[in-house]
């Protein structure tokens, strides 16, 4: 028996290792399986109702027939309006944290607040939206109230990814710029932001997906069960895809079974498409980066 032959103990060790690897792989597959099967099932069961007509017509007969066009339009209103408010504040907040703030108790409190903002339950955002925007500021149940609620809720998403994008810009870039006499803002405007804009964009895209999927925060602040007309301004209420899915699957009797499935397919499809765009952009960016 040569000295380097594997011992029984060693063989056992390897056997345990390969069993464990298989087990862990199984666990990981358990993550993929539900996602894939759920999406597959939604598509199969929703297929009978999915058509161009479904996407581009109004619901009729008490939402038991017709399409989901107003819900899609409403979701676009909500997402667009919330983005207009969330993106500038979120990006500038990240600029503050990455470019201005020193590492002290003050910036720690801000970071803590952002973590908490991300952790507040969505239904508490709904209560906040009702208390602050609908009642206190008197916006009523409107797209404006709902979008403001969504905007605050999605702040952490934008801040986190913008911060990451900004901190990926090497310090030497900034120092070079300061050396030629630029001020802090000039450096940010001409060096830091242009070099991180694509990364910031991925965060903004993620905000879209997050805002489009939320239901609870808009339920009492601006989304309606059913509206016979499309919103004309931010002071109107609107329908929304997520809300519509909730409504037709729990509140409305006699909906053809394929309808909620098809609505879910549209919602999930929209959200995953937006997310995939963000991921692809990020991967391309990582490949292209030279520093």
């Amino acid at each position, binding site marked *: 028996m040569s000295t380097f032959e594997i011992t029984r103990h060693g063989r056992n*060790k390897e056997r*345990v*290792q390969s069993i*464990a*690897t298989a087990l*862990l792989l199984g*666990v*990981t597959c*358990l*993550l993929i399986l*539900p*996602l894939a099967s759920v999406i597959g*099932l*939604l598509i199969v069961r929703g297929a009978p109702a999915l058509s161009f007509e479904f996407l581009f017509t109004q619901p009729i007969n008490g939402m038991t027939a017709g399409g989901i066009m107003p819900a899609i339009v409403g979701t676009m209103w909500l997402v667009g309006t919330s983005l207009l408010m969330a993106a500038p*504040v979120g990006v*500038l*907040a990240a*600029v*503050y944290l990455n*470019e*201005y*703030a020193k590492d002290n108790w003050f910036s720690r409190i*801000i970071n803590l607040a*952002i*973590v*908490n*903002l*991300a*952790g*507040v*339950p*969505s*239904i*508490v*955002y*709904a*209560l*906040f939206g009702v*208390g*602050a925007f609908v*009642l*206190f500021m008197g916006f009523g149940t409107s797209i404006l109230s709902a979008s403001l609620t969504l905007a605050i809720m999605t702040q952490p998403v934008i*801040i986190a990814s913008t911060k990451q994008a900004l901190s990926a810009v090497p*310090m030497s870039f*900034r*120092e070079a710029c300061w050396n030629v006499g*630029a*001020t*802090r803002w000039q450096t940010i405007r001409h060096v830091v932001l242009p070099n991180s804009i694509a990364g910031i964009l991925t965060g903004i895209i993620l905000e879209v997906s*997050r805002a*489009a*999927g939320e*239901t*609870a925060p808009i*339920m009492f602040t601006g989304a309606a069960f059913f509206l016979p007309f499309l919103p004309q301004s931010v002071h109107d209420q609107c329908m929304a895809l997520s809300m519509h899915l*909730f409504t037709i*699957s729990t509140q409305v009797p006699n909906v053809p079974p394929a309808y909620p499935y098809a609505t*879910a397919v549209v*919602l*999930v499809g929209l959200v995953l498409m937006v997310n995939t765009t963000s991921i692809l952009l990020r991967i391309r960016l990582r490949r292209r980066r030279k520093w």
Partner: protein
Amino acid sequence: MTSPEIRPRRSGARSETMQHIERWKEFVIGSVIRICGFSAVVFVFGIFFFVFKEGAGLLFGGLDFVQFFTSPEWYPDSPSNIRYGILAIMAGSFAVVVMAMIVAVPLGLGAAIYISEFSSGMIKEFLKVIIELFAAVPSVVWGFIGLVIMNPMIINVFNAPVGLNALNGAILLALMSLPIIVSISEDALKAVPDGYREAAEAMGATRLQISIKVLLPAAKNGLLAAVLLGVGRAIGETMAVLMATGHAVNIPTSPLDSVRTMTATIAAELGETAQGSDHYKVLFVIGTLLFLITFIINLTADLVVKGIRKR
């Protein structure tokens, strides 16, 4: 952040007036950025203030705290004897979250170990993308799945009278909190220095032994934070539990009992109450309670993580 020699100038312009304007511009923009930076703190206080304010009328005038916390009787609309006891509702939340974590924590840690230590290259990237997409599925869609897929499945498998129950909600919550547990655990494992792995490998340890005996203890704070954030996510989840747990206010005695959670109670009843009524206010009191619970969980998770960084 900056080295002592190289700092931004206060003004980049040469002439005196230009310098003056530049300095002004710098000040104004800097102030706007500082205000935006501080906004998150304002928002958190704002959320607490407005939710608390709407419920304060009842909180300081007439809410029987003993009954509120110890009675399982939630009869906000009873014509003769209105009772606001949230014990059963809290028990519902608690049961669903605990069951969800029993499923999600081992699965999440296992997947995190696999992704971090056993996979590499394209497979690793692919798995991380899947986790990210998983996290993006809206909660109302999970609720819908609970309603139309899990419901009949639970009835068939367990021979239960109803499929909308604590088990259904717990499975959905497990699926929904998995992505956050996996991604934060994976970060925590990644943060363990490679020297630990190399040292253990030099001693003849296998990957598995390294993972269990070296990495898990070394990353335990980060893993704890991951679990805490998963719990926070599960407690606050609304639409999925609203649609899938069956809407019965009672203290569950088995996983197949229907329950009602704190979040679902608010979502289900806020639309039906008259603004300013006691029933309306008590929902905001529950909201304040939820805010405080998640705030404490997030604060703890943050302190746990900061603990590692200091060391």
